[in-house]
């Protein structure tokens, strides 16, 4: 069984390289080294969660935020589809989760965070989550962790096509097309996704009442109105083009370019008494990301370089028409344009089965132009233009050594150093160890520890008004220890893991009014201690009669506690859980498949989230816990010239009334139908 597992892992790690006949001999050399002692050398002591491809391919309407909510212990703060979705990883802030796409940073250099609702899960082929110290191997600044996203070349030879159309509640339409071609040494993939929705779901508004008044303006009746979500309509367009080429000598080239164009309404709060003809908030974003890469195996050395470019054009527009005629004029027109150039060089060297060395260096050059373009003087045409224009060079250098003295034991050390502008972080060290406790059940103990730093964002330093150029990097100490086990038989498999973690973050950057009314300034003030336990479970089995059962679950207990000094004698936030971070969260996805049918049940639970730092238990101090259930049933039909799939989804199965964020009611029971068509072009 061990041998089979080793071969499987080798195949997974080798990936596309193994598919190339001419480079096979070279590939095996290094990959064999990586699998010594069953576990890949690269992953000694690393706490990594791989998002299951079934989860990523759940629905064309799913974003990475949905996949992360179901498939990991990361808490996603979101208030519905196509709204800002940010991550809290191990009780940290959104900017403490670093995200890369094909090796290039995705975190906004202005805000430091990533909006996961803007990443369609169908556009991601590989998604890995690196918890805590394990993120140091990916990038610096991941005080909570890091997420790597990647595209990969198509597996199907010849021409392939898949088209999926979805129609859902609230006038929601999704269209997805994937075209791929693979022949000889090159391949190409094109993906297009278009989503539109009125997103005007109905909800009972328990936050604000509807009043009936008489001619004297006196209230004569009141009720909680049944009303529609206002101004939540959205339109998203995503286009992804990839090319792959492998030379006879084993050089692998790739180019991936992803363009997104979104226009999203920001729904009015439930207590807002303006109508959608009086006030409108929207956010439009156009982003192009492109990464070109080369890598090659030279026996025991694997080398690669990458180059990329990101253009991001963000526009937040607030418009009003006091007369309620829908003749809007802008009152805020915040515009940000960001250009980022990216370059990376990397090398791995494995001289024998016991040692492996890796080094890489990444550079990002950002140029940001940010301003409020709203007209403040109609007579002179003067615009507000209060924000900033800045450039910043960022460099991240990394080296690691991994040693497996015996098949049971692995030890690794990482070292990273980061430069930002004319300042640098101290060295970022990380240590990893794993120990194969028992071959039976493949029981592995893992532990890691790291000192980490996250440097301030451009907004932190330069935003006008309020930016603070004297900010220091946030400093984090983190360690974790866990056990994992995997069992596999001919028909069944089971993976279990449990990890305890403990992180302390000093100089946490907090925006607060310090000197001037109405002006917030970031300062290094907060100290946070976050600790907890994460558990994961994944199992599958197939019965002799052909039933296939699978489940994937996770649970997290996360305490994220303010350990800072009091702001004033009256401060009651010290020792309390940070806002909007649930102490408990859990998710379970169960699949039952039989012949060409598949039933998927998704269950999610979040404990209460405090909305006040003193953890008040009143209506304004917390968002109540909620449990959410979704169900889908899919039928695949095979015809001679095409394969057809029909899928029905029911969301919020029990028609719950709930909020995930204060003032943001969520849709009640709703549904969608997806039809997928995969023509058969006689692929060989």
């Amino acid at each position: 069984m061990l041998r089979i597992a080793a071969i499987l892992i080798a195949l997974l790690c080798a990936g596309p390289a193994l598919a190339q006949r001419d480079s096979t001999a070279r590939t095996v050399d290094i990959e064999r080294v990586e699998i010594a002692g069953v576990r890949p050398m690269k992953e000694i002591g690393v706490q990594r969660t791989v998002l299951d491809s079934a989860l990523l391919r759940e629905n064309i309407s799913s974003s990475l935020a949905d996949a992360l909510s179901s498939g990991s212990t990361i808490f996603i703060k979101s208030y519905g589809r196509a709204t800002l979705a940010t991550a809290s990883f191990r009780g940290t802030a959104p900017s403490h989760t670093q995200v890369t796409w094909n090796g290039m940073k995705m975190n906004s250099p202005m805000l430091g965070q990533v909006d996961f609702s803007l990443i369609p899960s169908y556009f991601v082929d590989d998604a890995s989550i690196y918890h805590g110290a394990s993120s140091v191997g990916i990038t610096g600044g991941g005080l909570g962790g890091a997420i790597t996203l990647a595209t990969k070349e198509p597996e199907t030879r010849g021409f392939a096509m898949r088209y999926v159309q979805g129609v859902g509640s609230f006038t929601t339409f999704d269209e997805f097309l994937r075209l791929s071609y693979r022949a000889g040494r090159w391949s190409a993939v094109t993906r297009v996704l278009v989503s539109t929705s009125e997103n005007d779901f109905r909800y009972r508004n328990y936050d604000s009442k509807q009043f009936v008044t008489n001619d004297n303006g006196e209230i004569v009746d009141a009720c909680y109105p049944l009303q529609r979500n206002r101004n939540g309509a959205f339109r998203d367009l995503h286009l992804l083009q990839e090319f792959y080429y492998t030379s006879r000598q084993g050089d692998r080239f790739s180019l991936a370019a992803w363009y997104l164009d979104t226009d999203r309404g920001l729904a009015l709060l439930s207590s807002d008494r303006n109508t959608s003809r009086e006030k409108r908030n929207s956010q439009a974003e156009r982003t192009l990301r492109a990464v070109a890469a080369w890598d090659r195996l030279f026996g025991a050395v694997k080398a690669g370089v990458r180059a990329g470019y990101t253009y991001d054009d963000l526009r937040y527009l607030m418009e009003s028409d006091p007369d309620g005629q829908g003749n809007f004029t802008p009152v805020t027109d915040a515009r940000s344009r960001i250009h980022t150039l990216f370059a990376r060089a990397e090398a791995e060297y494995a001289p024998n089965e016991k040692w492996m060395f890796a080094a890489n260096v990444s550079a990002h050059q950002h140029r940001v132009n940010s301003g409020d373009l709203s007209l403040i003087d109609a007579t002179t045409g003067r615009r507000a233009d209060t924000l900033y224009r800045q450039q910043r060079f960022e460099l991240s250098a990394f080296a690691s050594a991994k040693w497996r003295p015996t098949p049971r034991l692995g030890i690794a050390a990482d070292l990273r150093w980061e430069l930002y502008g004319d300042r640098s972080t101290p060295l970022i060290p990380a240590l990893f160890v794993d120990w194969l406790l028992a071959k039976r059940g493949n029981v592995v103990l893992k532990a890691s520890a790291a000192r980490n730093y996250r440097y301030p964002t451009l907004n932190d330093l330069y935003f006008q008004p309020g930016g603070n150029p004297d900010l220091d990097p946030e400093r984090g100490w983190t360690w974790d220890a866990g056990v994992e086990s995997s069992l596999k038989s001919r028909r069944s498999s089971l993976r279990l893991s449990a990890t305890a973690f403990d992180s302390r973050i000093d100089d946490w950057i907090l925006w607060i009014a310090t000197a001037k009314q109405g002006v917030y300034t970031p300062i290094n003030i907060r100290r946070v201690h976050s600790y907890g336990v994460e558990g994961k479970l994944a199992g599958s089995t197939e019965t002799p009669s052909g039933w296939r059962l699978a489940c994937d679950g996770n649970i997290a207990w996360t305490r994220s506690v303010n350990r800072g000094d009091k702001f004033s004698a009256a401060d009651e936030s010290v020792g309390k859980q940070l806002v909007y971070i649930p102490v408990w969260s859990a998710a379970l996805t169960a699949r039952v498949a039989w012949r060409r049918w598949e039933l998927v049940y998704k269950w999610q639970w979040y404990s209460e989230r405090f909305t006040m730092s003193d953890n008040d238990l009143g209506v304004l101090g917390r968002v109540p816990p909620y449990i959410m259930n979704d169900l889908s049933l899919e039928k695949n039909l095979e015809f001679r010239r095409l394969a057809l799939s029909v899928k029905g989804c029911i969301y919020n199965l029990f028609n719950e009334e709930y909020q995930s964020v204060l003032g943001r009611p969520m849709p009640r029971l709703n549904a969608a139908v997806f039809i997928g068509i995969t023509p058969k072009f006689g692929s060989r």
Partner: protein
Amino acid sequence: MKRCLRNIMLALPALVAGACMEYGPQSEERFDLPGRGVFITCEGNFMWDNASLSYYDPATGAVENNVFLRANGMKLGDVAQSMVLHDGKGYVVVNNSGVIYVIDPATFRITGLIEEVVSPRYIHFVDEKTAYVTDLYDPRISVVDTRTNRIRARIDTDGHKSTEQMVQTGDRVFVNCWSYDDKILVIDTRTESLAGSITVGWQPNSLALDANGKLWAATDGRDGEAPALWRINPATLEIEKKFELPPDTPPSRLTFDARNNRIYFIARDVWRMPADAESLPAEPFLPYAGTLYYGLGVDPDTAEVYVADAIDYVQHAAVYRFSPDGEPLDTLRVGIIPGSFCFKRQ
């Protein structure tokens, strides 16, 4: 084992069905507090929908938080900006909810509401049947018929948005224009039209009228222009005196102490000065103590001073009550970011 499995199977449906969902109608509570008291509007966080109204009885020291929600079974909304009592009614201006709620000041129950205002900031009662409402985004001042709570007219402000506080002398209402502006507008209440303006420093953030009938304004200042206090003759519209402050400490929250004819303001510390002073005071009334003082109020009957400390802006804030001599009298915990005080007199 079988029993354990059966128990799990029985518990599962409750868990799955979401038995612990709590979102629903709010209960309503009866209040009857007709005596003297202080309303404290707590802004809450912008776009967090967590504004609230607190009520304090200085005689007993009792504080009732979140009284609007508790009395009415609904939230106050987003950013409670200000409150005024007029003719036995309380008018609570909720800026980012586009509404002014009219409440009974003893029961806190809603008795009416003024809508069709996009981003209201302050309400000022011109006479028994007319009120003006300023707006952050509308370059007009809304005129409300207070008998019906309906908008009766709009006064064009010649493109000046971000109209804020209002004070009145005779037939003139003065309005400061804050965001990206440097004007104090003059409204003629007889014609309900713009009658002129006074140019002061960059971004006048607050306005007050002293017992001598003089108009006071506080300005933020900007690069090359010091923040300042301005004393203006409202009859001639001339600036009588300009008190410049250090660049990093702009004055705000101008508040008038009617009993002693003094002006209070926050400029990092809390300051006060006689209305006829010719220079800024040397010592503050209350020194800065780590967090920025956010709100300021002076009881018109007792001259006691209320100073709000928003702490970290996401918790129950503290309000410190002082005697006119600066003696600490009480500390109360109110809602998030208390911005203004409204005194209920008997």
